[in-house]
C-alpha cells in the first residue's frame, strides 16, 4: 500500500512539536521524566471546556492539530484513527476506585469519558468533523495496526486520514501491569501517494510467516523512550518519525502481532515541515 505523509505532530514533556523532536534526536539521552511537565496547548479547545477534557485527550488533540496544520488541511476534513496501548488509565483508575467503595457514586462525565473513543468524540466536537472516526488498539502492536488501518482508510476512501497514537503515564496500581512513566502523543496526516512535493511517500506491506522470535525483535529503534524511568510503549512508532526526519530512503519493520510484521519503505525525499 502506497501512501504519503504530509503532516507530523508530536507532544511529550520536553518535546513540544516536530522541530523539538528533531532537536531531541540529536541527543536523546537528554530527555528524562524530570523534564518540566507542561500542559499541551491544544488551542482549539475552548477555555471553558479545558477543565473537562482529560489530559490524554488534550495531548492527542495537540499532536493532531500540529499534523493538520503542517499539511495545510482543515482538521474537520480528515478521517481519523486514534490509538492507544492502554487507553486513559487515569479514568480507569478513577472508575475502579469509585466502584470499590460502597456508594459507587460515579461521575456521569467521567463515565462517558471512559469509552476508548472519547478522544475521537472530543476531536470531532472541537473540529466539527463528521468523517469516520475510529479507535483501534493492539496493545504493544497498536502503532503498527493503527497505521495499517489508517492506510486502508486513506486508500479506500481517497481522503486525508489523521492517525494519532498516544499513551499517558500510569500511576500505581496500573503501573504494575504496564509501566509507563512519561506521556507521549504523536500524529501523522496521510494522503494517497502522489507527488513527493506534497508529502513523503511511504510504502506498507504486511509480511507473513515470520516466526515469533524474529518478529518479537522486529521493532527498529536506535533510540527510544524505553529505558528505565522513561517507558512508553506508544514510542514504538517514533522510528517512523525518525526516518521521516531524515532525507534518505529507509526500511523499517514493526511487529504487527501473532508473528506478522509490517514492513515500511520510506522513500527518499524532503523532511515534512510546516
Amino acid at each position, binding site marked *: 500500500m502506497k501512501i504519503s505523509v504530509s503532516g507530523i505532530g508530536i507532544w511529550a514533556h520536553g518535546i513540544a512539536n516536530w522541530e523539538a523532536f528533531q532537536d531531541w534526536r540529536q541527543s536523546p539521552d537528554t530527555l528524562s521524566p524530570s523534564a518540566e511537565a507542561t500542559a499541551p496547548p491544544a488551542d482549539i479547545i475552548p477555555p471553558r471546556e479545558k477543565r473537562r477534557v482529560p489530559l490524554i485527550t488534550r495531548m492527542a488533540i495537540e499532536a493532531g492539530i500540529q499534523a493538520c496544520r503542517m499539511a495545510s488541511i482543515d482538521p*474537520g476534513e480528515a478521517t481519523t484513527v486514534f490509538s492507544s496501548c492502554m487507553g486513559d488509565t487515569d479514568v480507569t483508575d478513577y472508575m475502579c476506585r469509585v466502584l470499590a467503595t460502597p456508594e459507587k457514586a460515579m461521575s456521569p462525565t467521567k463515565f462517558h469519558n471512559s469509552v476508548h*473513543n472519547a478522544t475521537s468524540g472530543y476531536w470531532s466536537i472541537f473540529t466539527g468533523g463528521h468523517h469516520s472516526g475510529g479507535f483501534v488498539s493492539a496493545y504493544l502492536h497498536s502503532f503498527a495496526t493503527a497505521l495499517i488501518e489508517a492506510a486502508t482508510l486513506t486508500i479506500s476512501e481517497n481522503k486525508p486520514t489523521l492517525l494519532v497514537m498516544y499513551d499517558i503515564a500510569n500511576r500505581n496500581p496500573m503501573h504494575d501491569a504496564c509501566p509507563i512513566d512519561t506521556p507521549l502523543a504523536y500524529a501523522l496526516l496521510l494522503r494517497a501517494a502522489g507527488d513527493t512535493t506534497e508529502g513523503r511517500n511511504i510504502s506498507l506491506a504486511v509480511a507473513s510467516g515470520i516466526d515469533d522470535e524474529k518478529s518479537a525483535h522486529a521493532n527498529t529503534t536506535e533510540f527510544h523512550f524505553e529505558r528505565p524511568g522513561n517507558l512508553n510503549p506508544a514510542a514504538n512508532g517514533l522510528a517512523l518519525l525518525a526516518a521521516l526526519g531524515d532525507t534518505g530512503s529507509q526500511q523499517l519493520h514493526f511487529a504487527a502481532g501473532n508473528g506478522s510484521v509490517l514492513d515500511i519503505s520510506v522513500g527518499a525525499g524532503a523532511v515534512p515541515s510546516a
Partner: protein
Amino acid sequence: MMRESIAAKRSGLDERPWPDSNITTWLGRVSELDTSPAPLPPEYDSRNNRLARLALQQDGFQLKVSEAIERYGAHRCAVMLGTSTSSIGRTEASYRRLEQDDHFNPDDRYASLHNPHSTGAFVAEQLGIKGPAVTISTACSSSARAFASAARWLECGLADAVVVGGVDTLCLSVICGFNSLQLTSTEPCRPFDKNRAGLSLGEAGGFALVTRERLTREDNAVALLGYGESLDAHHMSSAHPEGLGAKLAMQAAVQRANIAWNDIHYLNLHGTGTRSNDAIEGLACHTLLPETTLCSSTKSWTGHTLGAAGITEAVISMDALLTGLVPGTLHTQDPDPDTMLNILLDNRASNPQTVMSNSFGFGGNNCCLVFGKAL
C-alpha cells in the same frame, strides 16, 4: 437457540440484580457464565474472555475458521474484535484487593487483563490466527465498525479472511455508569414506545467470518453490501438533535451498496429505548426511508449489548435474510407517533432480500451496515 427465542418472542432480560449493585434494572445476562465458570489461563481469565470462548464454540464457528486457516494460511487471516468493556470487570476486581501502597495483587499484574486488546488478543490465540489482530473500541458502534474495517482490509489485500467479532460483558462500570447518566430503565426496555423509559443493558459475544469469496445461498452465506461510518460532532453522550451523523452513516451505506432506499426491506434500529435515541433515530430514518420499510429494535430480546451490539444485531439481521422471519419489537405496545416510524411490533414472515442495521455510540460515533442474500 437465537432463532427459537426470536420466533417464540422470548426475551433474555431478567430482573436479578447484579452482585454488589442495588440498582433496579433488567439485564440481558448470559447465565452460562455464572453456572459454568470454567477458568481460563490466569493472563486471560475474565468474564469477557470466557464469553468470547463460549461464543466461539457456538454454531460450528471454530471449524469454519480452521477451514479458512487451512485454505488461506493462518497468516492471511486477521481478527477485528469490537468491544467497549474488554476485561474491565477483572480490573474492577483487582482494585478491590489492592495491596499496600496501591499495588496490584501478584495474580492481577497481567497487562493482558487490563488493556483494551485483552479479548482481541485472546480470540486470535484461541483460533490460531497469525495475521494482525485489532481491537476496535468506539462504544456502541464497535462491532459494526469491525465489519467496515474488515471490508477495507480485504479490499486492500491485507488478509483473505477476517474474523469479525464483538464481545462485551456486564460489569459494575457499565451498570453504575449508565445509571449515573440516568439512561437505564427500571423495567424491561420498550424501544420506540410512547412510554419508553430507558435502556436495559445486556452482554453478548458474536462472530462472523468475512471473506472476499463469492458464496451462494447453499453455503448459508449472506453478503455485506455496504457500510457507512460518521461522527455527530455534537456531544459525548447525546446524539445530534437532527440525527445528522445517523443520516450520514445511512446514506454512505446505501451509496456504497449501490441500492435504492426502497430496496431495504428491514431496518434493525439501534433502538435502545431511551427517550432521546429513539426520537432522534426515528427522525433520521423517517427522513430517508419509505414508510414501507419494516423497522424494529431487537434490544428487548438481548438488552443493549454495547460493544457487542453491532455484531449481535448484524447476526440477527443476517438471519432474517436466511429464515425469512423479521423480528418485531418485544415489550413495545404503543409506538410513539412522534418518532414517525412504522414500528413492527410482532414478528413477520416477510422474506427480506436486503436489510440494514444501525449502531450509534457515545462520542457521536455512528455505523450503518447493509446486508443482502447471497445469490
